[in-house]
Each structure stands twice: as C-alpha cells, then as structure tokens.
C-alpha cells in the first residue's frame, strides 16, 4: 500500500509529540532519582550536575519504604489471588451454564464496576468500626480489612474478564472430557483450568496492579503500620520536607516491576477487555 509523503510526515510529528508527552514524567523520574539533593532544590535541571545513586540508598532510611512495600505486597497478593479463585468458579458457572439468575448476577457484577468507591468507603468504615465495638473483631486499620475492601473492585473485574476468557475456550474441549467419563467438575479442573492459565495469570496480575495503585480505601482504612505504598509515598510527598530525588527514586523502584509485568501481559489483557466490550 502506498503512503503519501505528507502522511509519513504527519505520522512522525504526531507520534513524536505523543511520545514526548508520554515519556516526559519517566524522564523526570529517572534523572531526578540520580541527582544530588541541591539539584532538585533549586530551579529544575535537565541534566544532573553529577550522577549519584545515593537517593536509592538513602530512601530506605527517609521513607518507611520496607513497611509500605510489605503491606502492599501482602494486601495486593491476597486480594488478587482470592479474587481470582472465587472469580474462576463463578466465571465457569456463568460461561458454561444457563441458569436462573444468571442475567441478574452478570448485571450486578458489571454495574458494581461503575459505582464510585466513596459509596462503599463510608459504610465499610462504619461497619468496621462498629463490628470492632460489638465483637472485638478488628478490621479497621488492619490488612485483612483492606483486603476485603480491595475485593470490591478486584472481584467484579476478575469475574468479568474470566467469563470473557472462558468463553473463548471451545466447549468441545469440556464436552470431549465429559464424553470420556469425567464429570463437569472434572472437565473444569482437568481441561478448562489448564487451558485458561494464561487468562488466569493475566487477570491476577491486572488485579494486583489495580490494587497496587489504590488510594481511596488505603488513605482511610490504614494506620502507620499497615500503610500501603500508594498512600505512604503520597503522604511523604505532600506532608514532609521533600527530598524529591529520594521520592523519585522510590517511585521508580516501585514502578519498574509493575510496568514490566503490564507490558508483558498487555496482549492477554487487550484480548480479555475487548472480548468483554464487544459483547
């Protein structure tokens, strides 16, 4: 196919501008994390006066990064793994069976996706506090409480995506297994789950990433020992004497694994999302 010269020019210009827009914060994050403190205290410098790795070392002292990291890892892993397990069972039912209430269930799941988080936050806060008063079960400020609230957004998403993914696995596979004398549950465990592994992993990681960035619930329902990275770093950047080079180093450190994970998985995600949206 021929491309006129103007088209190539437009392409170069537009893509360059969009690329610069996309990459500018990454450039700032990367360079600032390698700058000595005076460089980030005065007017902005495009290039560090000299390169230093000390922000990456000092940040562990300045910011309680290890605690935040531990909290985020635990809360996000448990919330996403639990969501995926529960969602997988439900998704199999929705994908393979026509049963009473299927429509209602699907619509409920989909519609909770559009609810503002604050709608759940206030009652959950009240419920947690009163539960603790009445029964001594303490969810407010605990990781367990945060995990439960995180499932408010990871679970519906996981169900939705996994239904879409299971729909792409040919039913002939389950049927062949059932003909072989395995029950539907056997077919599910021996045939469908293995075939769905890529989708399961992608959904799990995406749920993990979403939880990793969550701020609304974490800003209210955590205390100093359970604070997650998202609110911990945000708090540090707005409340304290700011060592921007260290904040940038910390931001970079907690971003790299997430970005790599996302880029590796984006194919699965797009397939799942568009499958869900085209329906």
């Amino acid at each position, binding site marked *: *196919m021929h491309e*006129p010269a103007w*088209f190539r020019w437009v392409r170069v210009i537009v*893509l360059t501008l969009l690329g610069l827009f*996309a*990459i*500018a*914060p*990454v450039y*700032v*994050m990367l360079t600032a994390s390698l700058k000595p403190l005076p460089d980030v205290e005065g*007017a*902005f410098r495009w290039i560090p006066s000299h390169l230093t790795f000390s922000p990456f070392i000092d940040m562990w002292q300045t910011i309680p990064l290890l605690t935040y990291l531990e909290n985020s890892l635990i809360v996000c892993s448990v919330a996403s793994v639990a969501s995926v*397990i*529960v*969602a997988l069972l*439900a998704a199999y*039912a*929705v994908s*393979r*069976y*026509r*049963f009473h209430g*299927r429509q209602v*269930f699907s619509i409920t*799941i989909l519609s909770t996706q*559009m*609810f*503002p*988080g*604050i*709608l*759940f*936050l206030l*009652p*959950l806060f*009240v*419920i947690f*506090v*009163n539960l603790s*008063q009445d029964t001594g079960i303490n969810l407010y400020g605990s990781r367990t409480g945060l995990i439960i609230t995180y*499932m408010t957004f990871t*679970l*519906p998403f996981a169900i939705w995506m996994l239904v879409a993914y299971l729909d792409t696995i040919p039913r002939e596979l*389950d049927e062949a297994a*059932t003909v072989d004398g395995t029950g*539907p549950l056997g077919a599910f465990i021996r045939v469908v789950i293995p075939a769905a592994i890529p989708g399961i992993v992608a959904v799990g990681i995406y749920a993990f990433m979403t939880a*990793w*960035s969550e701020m*609304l619930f974490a800003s*209210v329902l955590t205390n100093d020992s359970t604070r997650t990275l*998202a609110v911990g770093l*945000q708090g540090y*950047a707005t409340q304290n004497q700011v060592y921007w080079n260290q904040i940038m180093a910390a*931001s970079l450190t907690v971003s790299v694994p*997430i970005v790599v994970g996302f*880029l590796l998985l*984006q194919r699965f995600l*797009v397939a799942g*999302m568009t499958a869900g949206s085209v329906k």
Partner: protein
Amino acid sequence: MVDTIRVEQGVTPSAPSSPPKRRWWRRGSLPYVLLIPAILLELLIHIVPMLAGVGISFLQLTLFYLRNWRAAPFAGFSNYAVAVNFSSATGQALLHSFTVTIIYTLIVLAGAWLFGMAAAVLTQRAFRGRGAVRTLFLIPYALPVFASVITWNFMLQRDTGMVNQLLLSLHLVGSRPFWLIGQDSFWSLVVVQLWRTWPFAFLILTAGLQSIPADLYEAASLDGAGILGQVRHVTLPLIRPVNRVLLLVLFLWTFNDFSVPFTLFGSAPPSQADIISIHIYENSFVSWNFGTGSAMSVLLLLFLLVVTLVYLALGRRGARHA
C-alpha cells in the same frame, strides 16, 4: 451424584427453563454451588455496604455517633435537602464541584479518544520501530498512578518544576505561573488525567482496528479513497461498537477517579479542581458527617445510573437505525 450431570445438558440453550422440581437441585445445582463464594463475597463487600450506605444517608451520623451508629438520630431526607439546596453554601459547593467534574470529564474524554485514535490509526500500518512506539505509549497507563502523579506534582512545582523551566526557556511565560493552586490547577488536572487515560483508549482502539478486515481498506483504495477517506469510510464506521463501550468506560473511570486528583492536590484541592470524589471525601472525613457524605454518594450513584442507562438506550436505538 454430580457425575450424572452432563455439561452439554446445562449448556444447551434450549434446556428446559423449569425442569421437574424433584431433579432440579441435582441437575442444576453445580453452577449455584460454584457461585456461592462469589455471591457471599458480593453480599459482604457490595450489597450490604451499599444498603448500609443508603441507610446512613438517612441518619444524622456525626462524629459522636460513628462508634455506635444505632444511636444516631434519624434524619429523614434532611441530608439530601442540605446537599441539593443550591442556595446554601453546601449545596452551592456541591453543584460547583459537580460542574467542574463534568467539564473535566468531558475534556479528558474527548482528548483521550482523540489522542488514542490518532495514535492507533497512525500505528495501524507497519513501519520500522512500530513495536517500540506502541510500548512507549502504554507506559503512562502501566505506571502505578501514585508514582507517576507524584512525578507530575514535582514537575508542576512553581520554583523547582520542569514545566515552568520549559515554559521559561521557551519564553512562553514571563514569570513562573502556579500550577497546583488557582485557576490553572484545573488544567493541570486535565493534562495529568489525559496523560494517564489516553494510552488506554489507544490500547483498546488498536485492538479494535486489528479486527477490521484488510480487504475493506483495499476495496476502498480501489474505489479511489485516500488515507483520510479510508479512515472516514472504513475505520470510523467499523470502530463504532468499540467506541461505544470505550467512551462509557472512560467516562465512568474519569468521573469517579480519586487517585489522580488526590495525589496531585492532597485532600484539600483548590476549588477550581474540586472533583466530586474528593469533594465528598473531604466533606465526610473533615467534618465527619457521614450522613451528608452518604447522601451525596447516593445522589452521585443515581446520576451515574441515569447517564449509563440513557447512554445504553441511545446506543441501542442508534444501532437499530444504522
């Protein structure tokens, strides 16, 4: 026992909708069993809190009752009355915040779609380095919100930020403007949210474009359509179903988003960028009056429901006419 159920029986669309009662629990029980954990969790995390939230909106649930909400006095519709009384300061502030949020959402929506579409169309044809460009475009969406928006916060600092340095060196401004307070804070929010959102539009639109058969373009090309003509006559009409869902999802996400404004401004944003999610949050956790906060959330939910239903209904009618 479950062995006896054959999957195909359950799958068959023509399966009897009300099988004989005696065998019903045996034949159809598996999907329900599989759903039990999800339903229980849904009840626990969504349904019960939501009902509780609606309940709270009818209570005068202030600081002094939060630990024992059963003791809170019943308020009737007074929380709603306060929220929608637009001649009072609270109502005015809510209306202002709502208006700001709508304008911000629409601008971000339009920008994200435009940028995403432009990038998707321009990377549709193979060229050297296309893979790298696509990956680059996804980075804003892949970065954790807090990390990237903290960086934006740094970039938008008046005296030490990159943005003012750039504007000064290009001689676009005489003195350093403020980006995180005052009128311009609105545009800061729009730009940062746009930066964060457009890659998602790009991702979905790229996938949508890939599902358009290449021979349609060839046919259009044979008919004498140039690149712009092909975009207008092939791409845009065929991408419509994707657009329909994409725009709704983007609208809901942007409208409800909390993380970006919260990271950029903290819990007390400038009034020009007083997004509704933050507004309700600030109202609830500064004054500790959960009654009004809940009433506002319920109103917000009703608004979103109406918008979504109207949008879907319009879309369906549009699809039928097309």
